[in-house]
């Protein structure tokens, strides 16, 4: 948005044409210095990507209306579609010069994040919703293959990811998963962040991760288990499979929540809606059945890996 604002500022200043650019619902995008709305105005509709806006122009500039409309639309296309094309080329592994990347994506220097958004609803409706969230901000939102990519510089990354997910949930009422990886500072970082996000989605599906917002750096155990060789996985299964199969859904969700809560008994009890003593009783039962006391970090580590190997084999999908 900053790029287009600077352009509009220069355009007005250098041509002496005073105008105002307003969105369909009346929000002012830009207003020339000392522009005054009066009864002698003309209004021109302009396309800014998928959105429509309106130029308010004094009648005396009527002759310039068409060229003004063309210039703004062309610049918008140049700024935004160019950015999208660059990102697309980076992700496709094409050769894009560093200079062009840094010139077009200004926020890359200070570090940016990439969100991968998968939705089970209409992808075009979903991207419109996300674009609306970041309408006034320098954020790239685009469709890449069958998913949505959002790139920008975000302070509270998890909160933004949660907000995107919830906005899709509560406005389009469809399921939505958002994943993100590490901060990117250059084109290689963007490529890496995209692959990390993709991998997070894949791991989430493989290991039935319950969260719909996925942080690549928090999926450590899933990554370890995924990289284990088949023989080693079978060894874990031989030892634990029968025991896990015997547990009922209550015990499985207890294990799941206890691991998710970082072995914190009080947190897990609260999330499971059971008394702490009930949870302790269940943990004792797990110890009795499997020989592993999962309150102990070392034992919990082996147990978690075994549990994920079992999960991978017995994946449930919606």
């Amino acid at each position, binding site marked *: 948005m900053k790029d287009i604002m600077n352009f509009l500022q220069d355009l007005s200043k250098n041509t002496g044409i005073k105008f105002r650019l307003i969105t369909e*619902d*009346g929000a002012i995008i830009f207003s020339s210095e000392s522009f005054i709305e009066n009864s002698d105005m003309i209004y021109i509709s302009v396309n800014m990507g998928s959105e429509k806006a309106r130029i308010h122009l004094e009648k005396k500039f009527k002759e310039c209306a068409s060229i003004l409309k063309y210039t703004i639309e062309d610049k918008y296309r140049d700024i935004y579609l160019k950015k999208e094309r660059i990102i697309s080329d980076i992700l496709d592994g094409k050769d894009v010069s560093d200079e062009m990347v840094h010139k077009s994506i200004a926020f890359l220097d200070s570090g940016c994040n990439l969100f991968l958004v998968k939705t089970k609803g209409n992808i075009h409706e979903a991207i419109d919703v996300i674009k609306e969230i970041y309408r006034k901000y320098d954020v790239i939102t685009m469709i890449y293959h069958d998913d949505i990519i959002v790139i920008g510089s975000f302070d509270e990354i998890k909160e933004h990811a949660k907000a995107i997910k919830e906005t899709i949930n509560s406005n389009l*009422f469809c399921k939505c998963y958002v994943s993100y990886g590490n901060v990117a500072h250059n084109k290689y970082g963007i490529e890496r962040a995209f692959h990390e996000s993709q991998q997070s989605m894949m791991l989430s599906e493989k290991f039935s991760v319950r969260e719909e917002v996925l942080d690549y750096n928090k999926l450590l155990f899933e990554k370890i288990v995924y990289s284990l060789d088949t023989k080693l996985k079978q060894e874990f299964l031989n030892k634990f499979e029968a025991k896990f199969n015997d547990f009922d859904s209550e015990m499985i969700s207890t294990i799941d929540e206890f691991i998710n809560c970082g072995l914190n008994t009080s947190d897990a009890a609260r999330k499971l809606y059971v008394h702490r003593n009930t949870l302790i009783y269940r943990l004792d039962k797990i110890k009795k059945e499997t020989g592993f006391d999962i309150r102990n970090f070392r034992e919990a580590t082996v147990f978690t890996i075994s549990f994920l190997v079992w999960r991978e084999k017995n994946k449930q999908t919606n």
Partner: protein
Amino acid sequence: MAGLSLKHIYKVYTGNVTAVKDFNLEIEDKEFVVFVGPSGCGKSTTLRMIAGLEDITKGELYIGGELKNDVSPKDRDIAMVFQNYALYPHMTVYDNMAFGLKLRKTPKKEIDEKVRDAAKLLDIEHLLDRKPKALSGGQRQRVAMGRAIVREPKVFLMDEPLSNLDAKLRVQMRTVIAKLHKRLETTFVYVTHDQTEAMTLGTKIVVMKDGLVQQVDSPQQLYNHPINLFVAGFIGSPQMNFIDSKIEEQEGKVYVTFEDEKMPLSDETSKIIKEKGYVGKDVVMGIRPEHLDDDPEFIAKHTDAIISANVEVTELMGSETFLYLKKGKAAFTAKVAGTSSAQPDDVIKIALNPDRIHIFDKETELTIV
């Protein structure tokens, strides 16, 4: 505003996991219905099916008399408040609340009116210019609710909206939600695992377990007339005491016996027990902690229902005390006055209110009387 009708609803996941089985429910317009049950009972799944976030495997969903199974979820005219609500960190409270309306291209003036009305209702007018990070947990939750309110939906769906708040805030927000329902006069469907929340908010409560509806009733009826052992144990805090007992008849009078104690049952209860053929059979006796008392006046009133028991632990809660008692193998809790003098290791006399005894079938766990 609208009523809802759920007919023979099922949710089956691949792998043949049935999360919700034959769910039937009529929700009247403006009713406050609460789905309550333990983790994994299917309450959130049912709510998400109403919202359209989960497909309905089988069955029919009507909103305002219209079949909505195949209606796009966003056209169902509902608003949902989630457990893990998320606000847009880069927007002010005002913009957070206005976002859904902007998306629907609502005129600016109308948005402003609705946002300010909702903010007033939620007592967050003074926060409209703040960003989410400058808000407390309770304030954030109010904003999340405000976002749903401004949409003026036919039905509000709330999925454990208070579970991320601390105990004190939950109590406060419970009152806010109750007031909201009264003011908005809209149908509310609310999911919680917390029976106190369910009892205090709901006009109708749906108790669920393992994907099945156990009982649908008013809070009072659920408390006084639970349909089975599960509902009896789930509703009420501390939970109802359950004691393995036997029904005996002596000289025409029916008793419930456990350990070496013998409690006479009222004539009405005895009649039902006899009619149903339970004399001589093992049963489970249920009595709520508040229907046991060591108060001398209460004991004097119920002389034929006195037992002696060991006090194991006492918990003074202020105006009341919980006594954890043991009688042979039977353990039970009594909720008595805070002035009770009972101390751990004491052997005390305590009376049961025979009119409030519940008897359950030991095998089917269904309520006999």
